[in-house]
C-alpha cells in the first residue's frame, strides 16, 4: 500500500503541529489522531521521518506529550540565538549557552537523573547562586597561566544585581547583571515550551517541562559532549 495524496497532507499537518511546541495532542483531536497513526502505522511513520530528515530535523520522542523534534544546527528550523533580544556579541551568545547548560546541570546533575521524571523546579535566584558557586570553585583552583579569558569569567564579571538608571522610575535589570541573563534564558525557555512559570512556588520560579528533559537527554547533552570531545582531540593533535 502506498500513501495517497491525502496521507501526505496528513504528514504535513502532523509536522505542522509538532513544530509548534505549545500545541498539545490532548487539546487537539487532529493532532492526537495523527500522533496515534504515527505510532501505529510504519509507512506513515517512515514518511514523516523522511520529510523531517530532509529538513534536518528528527523525532526525539512520540509520547502523549506530542512529537518532540530535535534540530540539527544547519536546519532551517534551528533557533537563531542572535534572534533573542539583546543578544548580539560573542559574549552574549556564550552567556545564553552557559546559562542553558547551567540550568540543565542544576536540574539533572547526573546521567541517572534523566531517567527520573519527577518534576524539577528552578528559580532565577537558585540558578544564579549555582552558577556563581561553580565560578567561585574555578576561581580557587590554582592555574599556571592567568589568561583571564576562560568562559566562566564572562559570567563571573557580571554583577549579581546591577540595575541601570538608578533613581529614574523603576530600575530594570541591566544586561550587565547575571540575573538578567538567567531570567532571560528561562523566559526564552517558556516561549520554546521547555518551561512554565509557577508564581505560587516563589518569586521567578519555573517548572522545567518534559520537553526540556527530552531535548537535553536525547539531543543537546550528547551532541555538545561530542563537539567538546572533538575540540579537545584537535587540541591534543595540533
Amino acid at each position, binding site marked *: 500500500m502506498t500513501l495517497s495524496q491525502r496521507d501526505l497532507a496528513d504528514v504535513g499537518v502532523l509536522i505542522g503541529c509538532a513544530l509548534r511546541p505549545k500545541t498539545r495532542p490532548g487539546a487537539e483531536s487532529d493532532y492526537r489522531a495523527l500522533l496515534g497513526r504515527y505510532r501505529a502505522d510504519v509507512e506513515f511513520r517512515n514518511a514523516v521521518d523522511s520529510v523531517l530528515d530532509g529538513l534536518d530535523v528528527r523525532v526525539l520522542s512520540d509520547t502523549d506529550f506530542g512529537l518532540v523534534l530535535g534540530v540539527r544546527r544547519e536546519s532551517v528550523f534551528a*533557533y537563531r540565538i542572535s534572534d533573542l533580544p539583546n543578544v548580539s556579541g560573542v559574549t552574549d551568545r556564550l552567556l545564553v549557552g*552557559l546559562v542553558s*547548560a547551567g540550568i540543565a546541570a542544576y536540574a539533572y546533575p547526573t546521567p541517572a537523573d534523566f531517567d527520573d521524571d519527577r518534576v524539577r523546579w528552578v528559580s532565577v535566584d537558585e540558578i544564579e547562586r549555582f552558577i556563581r558557586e561553580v565560578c567561585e570553585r574555578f576561581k580557587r583552583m590554582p592555574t599556571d597561566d592567568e589568561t583571564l579569558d*576562560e568562559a566562566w569569567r564572562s559570567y563571573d564579571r557580571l554583577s549579581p544585581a546591577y540595575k541601570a538608571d538608578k533613581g529614574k522610575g523603576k530600575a530594570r535589570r541591566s544586561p550587565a547583571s547575571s540575573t538578567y541573563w538567567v531570567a532571560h534564558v528561562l523566559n526564552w525557555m517558556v516561549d520554546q515550551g*521547555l518551561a512554565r512559570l509557577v508564581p505560587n512556588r516563589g518569586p521567578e520560579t519555573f517548572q522545567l517541562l518534559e520537553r526540556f528533559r527530552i531535548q*537535553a537527554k536525547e539531543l543537546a547533552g550528547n551532541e*555538545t*559532549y561530542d563537539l*567538546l570531545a572533538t575540540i579537545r582531540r584537535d587540541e591534543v593533535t595540533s
Partner: protein
Amino acid sequence: MSEPSTVGRAVFDESFGGRVRALLRARPVADAADNAARQTWGEQGYDVVTLALTAIDTVIARQGFDDEVTYDEAVAGLAALATNVHPQRSFDEHDAVARYVVDALLNRKEREAPFSYQVSTFARADDGAVRHRYTTAEFRLLTEHEDHTRGVNVLRASTDAINALVGGLEFDVEDEQAAIELMLARQLERGAFGQAEKAAERSRLLSVRYADELRTLLADTTRDIRTVLTQWAEQVPEQLERNRAHLEDRLAGESKLLEHVRGALDATDTEPTVATAAARIAGLLEECRQRHTELHGKLVSARTVFLDEQTRQSFRPVGGLRNPDITDGVFLPLLSLPVDVAVDPAETFAILLAGTQVQPLVRFADLVDDLLAPRREPTPEEPPAPDDELGDPDPPAVPPEVLEAAARVVDGVGLPARLSDLLLAARTTDFPDGVDSAAVERLIVLAVLWNYAPETTEDLSTAVDAAARVLGPTAAVDADGALISMPGWSGDDLIVAQDEEALARWAETYSVAAQRDREAS
C-alpha cells in the same frame, strides 16, 4: 637580563605576591580619593577614604541579616556624615559625595565589573636571569544583590573587602546570637525594654537565617550529593553537632528569658509602656522558640536525609548508557574553555535544547498596515513632558464666557434631562453680549457626546475639564433609542444625568413612560 644587584631578594619570594595583592585591595579607595579632586565638590576637602571605610563598615554591620543595607541607606548615612564636615554646604553636595563614594566601591563606572589591575611578577630562573610576566588581579569590594522580600537591591561586602579593609572581622552567627541574648538579659535587668525588643526581633531573624542555611545544605544534598560530599565529610558533622548543642542551649535559655519577661508582666508595679513591650517581646520569644524547635527537628533528621540521599543517589541504577552527563561532560568543560572556543559548543547546546523555531514571515499587508499606523501614544504612566512652562499657554478653544453660559443653562434646566431639553433652554435663553447661543449649543452637545463616548484626544485633560464644568464631574449619559427632533441637530436624544444612579432611576421611570407614549401614538 641583567643581575639585579640593587633590589632585595624578597621580590622573588612566593609570599611577595600575596602582599602586593593585599595592598591592591586598597587601591580602588585610593583611586577614588584621587579622582575626587576632579568632582565639582573636589575643592571642599571631603575625606573620601574615611567615608569609604565607613561605607564598608555600615554594610558589614547588617550583612547577612534580613534587613541588609540598601544603596539608598548607605548613601543617606554617608551624606549625614558629610553634612558634619561642611554644614553650610548644600544637601545636594553631601548627597553627591556619598553617592560618589558608594559608586566607587561598587565600581559602577564599569557597570559593577570587578576591579582589575595588572601585576608584575618577577621570578629568577635557575641561571640567575630574571623573568618578568604580567598577571591580572580581579576582585570586588561591594556587590549588589536582590532582596526579594523587600524588592530592593541590597549591598554586601566581599571577602576581599572584609579581609583587607576591615581586618579579620569574622562573622560568626553563633557568637552573634549569644551576644544578643546576653544583651537582652542585661536590658531586661535595666528595664531598657525598647532596646530589648529590637534585640528579640533580631534574635528571631537569626533563627530564620539558621533554618535557611540548613535548608540550602539539605537542598544541595537532595539535588546532587556529590557537590556537598566533601562538606559532609569535613565540616558538616561537626557543624551539625555544634548547632545542635547550641540550639538546645538556646531553647533552654530562651524559655528562661521568657519567664523573665513574663515576670515583668506579672509584677503589679510595671509601667504600662514596659508591660506592652514585654508582652510583645514575650510573643516574639515564643515564636523564636517555635523556630528553634522547628530547626532542631530538621537538624536531628539532617543526617538521616544525608544517608537516605546517599543510598538513593549512589545505589540507583546507572541510567541509560546514552544519558548525557551534563555537569561533568558539558557544563564544567564549557566553563573552563577560553571564550572564543567555548562560544560555539555553548551556542550549540542552547540551540539543540531550544527545539524548533518557525521563522515568523512578514505578510506584506500587515507590514503596510503597521507602517501606516499612527505612532503609539506614550504609556500614561509617564508624566507628560513639562513643556507647559515654556511660552504662554495656548488660548482655550472655548472662551470661558461660553463655558460659563453653558453651565448656567444646564443648571437652569436641572439634571437629569434630555439633550433636546438642554438645547431648547440654550436656544431660548438670553445671553450677555459676546456669547453666541449657537456656540453654547455646540458646547453642550460636545460635552454630552464626550461623556457618552469619550474620544482619545491629544489634550485629554482639557476635554475632561470642559465636560465636567458644563455637566458636573460625575455626569452620566446614555441613549435609549429616542431620536432628537431639534432643527439643526440629528441623532439620538441622549439622556443626561448628574451620576450613574440618577441615570438608572431615570431609565426606570421614563423608559416605561416613553414606551407608553410611543404605543399611544
